[in-house]
Structure formats: structure tokens, C-alpha cells
């Protein structure tokens, strides 16, 4: 066997730190070159051992679960980065936020249009509206009622506090004699000196209650 075949055996045996086996020992006793290499390898192993012990002394393997100062600093940095990561919005979150903002603006505009205040004029009010609009009828009901054409006459005077006419309600005009006090209660000025009955035309609703009144042409008012 030539010496190159022994190199691996010499190196591995020297690394193990033990004695060479019998075959290698026999070869070393005969080959000066290999013996020199063996000595060098043993010396190298010895030096490495010192270096290894030295390095282990400087930084031994994990002795316990307690972190040294450098480790603690690193953990603080880790925690800081985790907090920063949680607070930093990703592009998906940014996109979602933008979409939510646009949606909110759209909904806001829609609601704003629906709730915009539209002024209601008495002349546009119609019969049959809800009770909330009743106050408008006091001045406008007779002007818009198609069923009470007679009420369009300027001579008729609306009876105060009378209920408004319903849509399609049929009215009757009744000629009657009324006491001056009754006329006064309907809002007609009468001569206090006059004490007799007065002839008047009264617009009566289907419920029998008066809605408007006017003095007859031949009245003495």
C-alpha cells in the first residue's frame, strides 16, 4: 500500500485522539514521511482542542432558559417590530378602508337627498293629506276644493276652527236665518244694535258641521 492510501487513516485516527490501530502503527514504524504527518496531525488536533475549549469558554452552549443582555435586547427589538407590524396597515387594509369611505360617502349623499327640506306652500296643499298638515287647510282648503265651488266666492267666510273638508266630500249650501251672535261666532262682524235674525247661506259638510258662511244678498247687514 502506498502512503497516500494511509492519509485518510492517519487524519481520522489523529482526529479521534487515540492510538493508531496495529496496521497503521506498523506502517508508521516503517515510513518516516507518514510518521511525520502523523505527528503533525496529532499536534494539530491538540491545538484545535485548546481553541475549542477557549471558544466554548467564551460562549458556552445553552446553559439555561435565561437570556443574556444581548438576548434581552434582541427580544425587545423583536417585540418592538411586532408592534410596528401590527400597527402598519397593509395594502389590503388600505384598500378596504378606502372602499368603506367611498361607501359611507355614497350612503350619506343618498340620505341627505331624501331628507332635504322641501317648503310646502298653502296653495299647493290638497285635501286628504295627513292630520299633520291640517293647519294649512284653514287658509287654503276652500281654494283648492273642487267640490266646494261655492266656497271660491269671496263673499263666503271660512268658519274658524272647522274641520277641513275631506277629498271628494260633498257640501251643501243651506239658506237659513241666524242670530247675530251665531254669525259673530262664525267670524262675521254684525251690527251690535241689530237684534233680529239675519238671512245667511251656510256651507255644510257631510258631517253636518258648517264650513263657511255668507250673508244673503237681501240681508239687512
Amino acid at each position, binding site marked *: 500500500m502506498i502512503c497516500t492510501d494511509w*492519509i485518510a487513516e492517519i487524519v481520522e485516527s489523529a482526529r479521534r485522539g487515540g492510538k493508531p490501530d496495529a496496521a497503521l502503527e506498523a506502517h508508521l514504524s516503517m515510513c518516516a514521511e507518514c510518521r511525520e504527518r502523523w505527528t*503533525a496531525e496529532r499536534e494539530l488536533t491538540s491545538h*484545535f482542542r*485548546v481553541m475549542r475549549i477557549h471558544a466554548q469558554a467564551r*460562549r458556552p*452552549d445553552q446553559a439555561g*432558559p435565561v*437570556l443574556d443582555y444581548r*438576548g434581552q435586547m434582541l427580544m425587545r427589538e423583536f417585540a418592538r417590530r411586532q408592534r410596528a*407590524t401590527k400597527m402598519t396597515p397593509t395594502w389590503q387594509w388600505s384598500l378596504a378602508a378606502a372602499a368603506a369611505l367611498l361607501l359611507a360617502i355614497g350612503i350619506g349623499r343618498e340620505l341627505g337627498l331624501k331628507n332635504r327640506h322641501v317648503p310646502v306652500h298653502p296653495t299647493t296643499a290638497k285635501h286628504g293629506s295627513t292630520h299633520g298638515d291640517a293647519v294649512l287647510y284653514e287658509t287654503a282648503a276652500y281654494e283648492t276644493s273642487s267640490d266646494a265651488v261655492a266656497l271660491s266666492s269671496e263673499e263666503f267666510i271660512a268658519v274658524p276652527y272647522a274641520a277641513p273638508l275631506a277629498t271628494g266630500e260633498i257640501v251643501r249650501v243651506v239658506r237659513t236665518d241666524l242670530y247675530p251672535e251665531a254669525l259673530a261666532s262664525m267670524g262675521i262682524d254684525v251690527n251690535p244694535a241689530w237684534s233680529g235674525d239675519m238671512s245667511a247661506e251656510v256651507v255644510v259638510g257631510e258631517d253636518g258641521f258648517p264650513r263657511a258662511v255668507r250673508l244673503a244678498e237681501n240681508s239687512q247687514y
Partner: protein
Amino acid sequence: MGTGSTGKSDEELYRLTRKGDQSAFSELYLRREPAIYRYALHMSGSSVVAEEVANEVFVQLMAPNAHFDERKGTLESWLYGVARNLVRVVRRQGPVEAAVDRAFEHDILGELIHGENIEALQRAMRDLPERYRDVVILCDLEERSYEEVAGLLGCPIGTVRSRLHRARALLSTKLRWLNAPAEVCSR
């Protein structure tokens, strides 16, 4: 070497770390940092550089853009790779401070370290090509098996063995030359 006190592998701990588990990161640090430090110490010859490198390796590990990919190798291999690159960068910037042994100047181990042969060996190691230095550190100084080193370096076991034998031959030759009497060297 892949699992520690919790029984979790490096890769499992890494996955937990990515989810923000600080205890997983802590265990990974305790498990791997000392060896990374010693590796950087032997590679650079400077304790200052070793401290910085070991710290920076774990800073890179916690970075959101850490490029570790389990399919390409183990986490330990990745850690050594980062440390190697960092030492390479430091060495490229110029000679590093050889302040390895200040803390051991006055004890027996320090005297041994400061022996001529050891210092000569440290110098010789720093002059070795990187691929040889790697296997010497991992096999002879960290006492890792050929299989483990092959896994860490991503090369066949035979390559590790042949590199180690070659590296030891180079170191022996260099030591012999350094220790030889002046007249022998001048011949």
C-alpha cells in the same frame, strides 16, 4: 441538533416566530446563537466581529423580508450562511481587530491560547480558503459530524472529508514553516 427544550424543530420555531411568538424566537436564539458566535469568532478571529455578526444574524432572522426557505435547506444552514456572508463583508472591509483573547490574558487557558503555536494556527486558519476554513471550524472546532457539516454546507460527505484532509495538510505545512528555524526558512 434540530430540537431543543420544547421538542420543536428549528423550522417549527421559525414558523412560530413569523407569527409573532417571542418565546419561539427566544428558544431559537438560545439554541443557535452560541454556535453562530463561535463560528464567526473562528472565521474572523475577532470577538468584536463575532458579537456583531451573531447579533446581526438574528436581526436578519426576525426581519419581515427574511429569505429563509425551508425547501432549500435547514434553518441552521441558513443561519451559518448569513454569518458567513457577514464575516465575508467585514473581512472585505479590511483586517479585523485580533482581540480574541483579552478576557483570557491572565489565566492558564489564556497562556495556552497565547502560545506561539496556537497563535500561528489562528493566523494560518485566517489565511485558509473559505471552503477549507468552513470544514475545519465545523468538523474540528465545533465537533460536528461529516453528515451534519455536509447538510450545513450543502455538499456531499465525501467533499467535506476531502476538504478537511486537505485543510489539515495545508495547516500542518504552514505551521511547520512558521515554526521552522530561520535558517531553514531562508534556504
